């Protein structure tokens, strides 16, 4: 009990630093999440593409095409003020727009030249994989083709434009069905999903750095000697330290979960919250065990920070925390299966798809994460004992 209490006494002294870390990683988590939120997916919705339009022609034809695009996409028609903000020369403006496309601010930039009404030729920038290029260009080309066919059939300009618009509107009623293979509900990928997906990185960083900050304080020579003078066995001392670390970790987890729940109240499916929390618990235990292991290896805060950053950032990139798992190479995903975050992200995806927490898949994810936690804790205990024996 004295060792257990000592942990929290030192935490009280170093509370400001620990709080700074926790606050910073909560901020990171929200910063990442806000970029990734999307609407529910129970019915088919075309992916809203962000289209910027620079209309130099200001013709009836370009207006009609813009109207058509606005039906399914987020269209921004660039005004003179917008262009002024991008740059002073046309070259600078085009470069900024090109950068906006390359970094995903826009999916497609459409430019109608002054001669558009005469020659029907437009230019565009799109993402490098050409998916947005196909989608938007195909919409525009289909419209223009219908227009040309109408004019070849003898219609005048206005009638041809009107009929082409009617055909375009009618084609929007294409029958597209959403198949549902999940047990119930289906994946939503709402804000709660993204918060929990990124939470593993923030939680691990906050817990490991917080615990290690306190543990380095407990490695004060005088304190260590006083503890070892006591009647407590080394096992009890280790158990007390680990218990205190775990309690701290649970407290940090509670804080993260509380903030996430308050943020998502009313805007996300909270029935999945318990599954998310259940999936997060092994990460918390694993982080506490990892912190315990690190603290037995070194007392240098800089090295602890370095190792923690290295491990958590590398795992986050390789296991699908920052980049979706379905976008990663199969070989990388195979290697990622040897890391706990991979199984955490799998668990988050299962929870989002409303898979039962007692299902084999979900239990497998939790079980493997707990195995990692056990491995770290065991390594920490072994190293701690061997060092104590050596002394």
């Amino acid at each position: 009990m004295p060792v257990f209490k000592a942990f929290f006494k030192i935490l009280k002294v170093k509370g400001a630093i620990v709080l700074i870390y926790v606050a910073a990683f909560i901020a990171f988590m929200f910063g990442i999440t806000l970029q990734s939120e999307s609407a529910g997916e129970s019915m088919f919705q075309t992916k809203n593409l962000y289209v910027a339009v620079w209309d130099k022609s200001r013709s009836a034809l370009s207006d009609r095409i813009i109207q058509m695009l606005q039906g399914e996409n987020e269209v921004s028609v660039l005004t003179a003020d917008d262009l002024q903000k991008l740059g002073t020369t046309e070259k600078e403006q085009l470069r900024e727009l090109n950068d906006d496309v390359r970094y995903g601010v826009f999916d497609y930039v459409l430019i109608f030249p002054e001669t558009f009404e005469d020659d029907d030729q437009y230019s565009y920038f799109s993402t490098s994989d050409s998916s947005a290029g196909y989608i938007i260009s195909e919409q525009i080309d289909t419209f223009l083709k219908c227009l040309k066919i109408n004019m070849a059939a003898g219609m005048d300009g206005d009638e041809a434009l009107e009929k082409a618009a009617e055909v375009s509107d009618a084609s929007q009623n294409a029958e597209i069905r959403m198949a549902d293979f999940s047990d119930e509900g289906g994946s939503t990928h709402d804000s709660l999903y993204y918060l929990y997906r990124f939470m593993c990185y923030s939680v691990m960083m906050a817990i490991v750095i917080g615990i290690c900050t306190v543990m380095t304080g407990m490695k004060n020579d005088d304190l260590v000697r006083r503890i070892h003078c006591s009647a407590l066995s080394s096992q009890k001392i280790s158990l007390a330290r680990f218990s205190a670390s775990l309690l701290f970790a649970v407290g940090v987890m509670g804080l993260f979960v509380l903030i996430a729940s308050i943020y998502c109240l009313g805007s996300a499916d909270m029935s999945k919250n318990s599954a998310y929390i259940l999936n997060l618990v092994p990460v918390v235990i694993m982080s506490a065990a990892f912190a315990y292991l690190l603290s037995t290896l070194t007392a240098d805060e800089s090295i602890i920070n370095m190792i923690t950053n290295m491990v958590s950032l590398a795992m986050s990139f390789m296991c699908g925390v920052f980049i979706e798992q379905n976008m990663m190479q199969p070989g990388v995903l195979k290697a990622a299966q040897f890391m706990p975050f991979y199984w955490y992200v799998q668990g988050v995806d299962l929870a989002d798809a409303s898979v039962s927490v007692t299902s084999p898949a979900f239990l497998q994810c939790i079980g493997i994460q707990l195995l990692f936690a056990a491995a770290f804790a065991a390594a920490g205990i072994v190293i701690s004992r061997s060092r104590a024996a050596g002394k």
Partner: protein
Amino acid sequence: MTFGHIFLYRIKELFRQKWCVGWNFLFPLVLATAFFVGFGSFIRNADILTTVDVAVVETQDDEMSSSFVDLVKKLDFMNVSVVDDEEAQELLKDGDVAGILYAPSFTANTRQLLNGNTLDNASSAADTLQISVENIGSSSMLTEDAKQASYWINDPTLTVAENGVNQTILSQFLKSYIANEKEMAMIITSADDPSAIPAAIQKTADMMAEDMTFGSSDVSLRYTDDGRGQLSPYMHYFFALIAMASLFASWISTSILDEAMANHSEIGKRNECAPVPRAVSLTANILSGLVIQVISVTCLILYIQYVLKLNFNAPLGYVILISAVCSATGIAFGVMFGALLGNHPATTTAVPLLFSMGCSFLSGLMVGNIQQIIQAAAPWINRINPAALLTDGLDSLGSYGIGPAYWQDVLILLALTAAAIAVSSLILRRKNYASL
């Protein structure tokens, strides 16, 4: 002599400190390798058109279905599997296809109008329609229903399991196909002379079969002056990593200041008592830290270019130059934090870590496009964030070559460095051993 002595011995000392070697040399290399493993293939395959896997189910055995299947197979961005419905559902459930396209077919009305006529001379769906219309006879048989495309053709449909880009591509293809059908129906029904309908159908079909594209991708700005290819947006993660590695120099300078001030450490007391002027001592220490940092960032840049074989699309000298300037900014900010925060325990660890991580986060280390979003919402943040300045400089260097944008970023970084040093000087110059 004193300056040189302090400079050299500080370099030796820094190289012997595990945290310095680990943070500044090892950590960036490990993270660069993790990035490469995670999404290096996206960078190498940046210009390859992604294909969409789709299952096609022929709903009936007629020319409409078969011509639709032929059309889909010809599209180079579709990877087509022609299967039955059950197999298609399995493929969709397993995620092997993005969607199932059910081919269109002729309605019973059309088949009735064909009256079992052979279709030897009907090589396409348009021919079939033409024959059907000819069999209608006079215009009085064109009822209101017959003026709708649905009278002749059962539209193709699409089934997907989730929302996404590939599903949107398939939906757009479907809508374009249906638009062509509706257009055909409109041409049929708008003809004044029924006897002219078959010719109108054929002409429309011919025009639809033409490869008409009206847009061109404007690539004139996408290449550097010597015509090298566009820089992949995923390289931005590596630029943000270089920025973070450069800003790790703040750790070095906070530890330098820790050992230079009497109220920070025992070594600080001894240094304060030494006859060396503080300006000389600090300058030598800071320059030694800068040398270490420049060496570590150069190693990282060379590792990315030659070991991971990811091209910066720019002369390496300019890449190293802006990284060195950013390292100087990191060193200067570290000195400033040390001067401002004094002996607070957060100075040596928490503040440099959060400074470098925070700036790197806002420049796109974790979310690749955050810098562009900040540029649209609050561009002044990008102008004062050293990491954002570095990534912007490298990006404009790789995309557009050496130009005003690159030099502007270098100059702002130098200005930030000068400002941080000026603030530190103001705080530190009046502090002597007696006043600490």
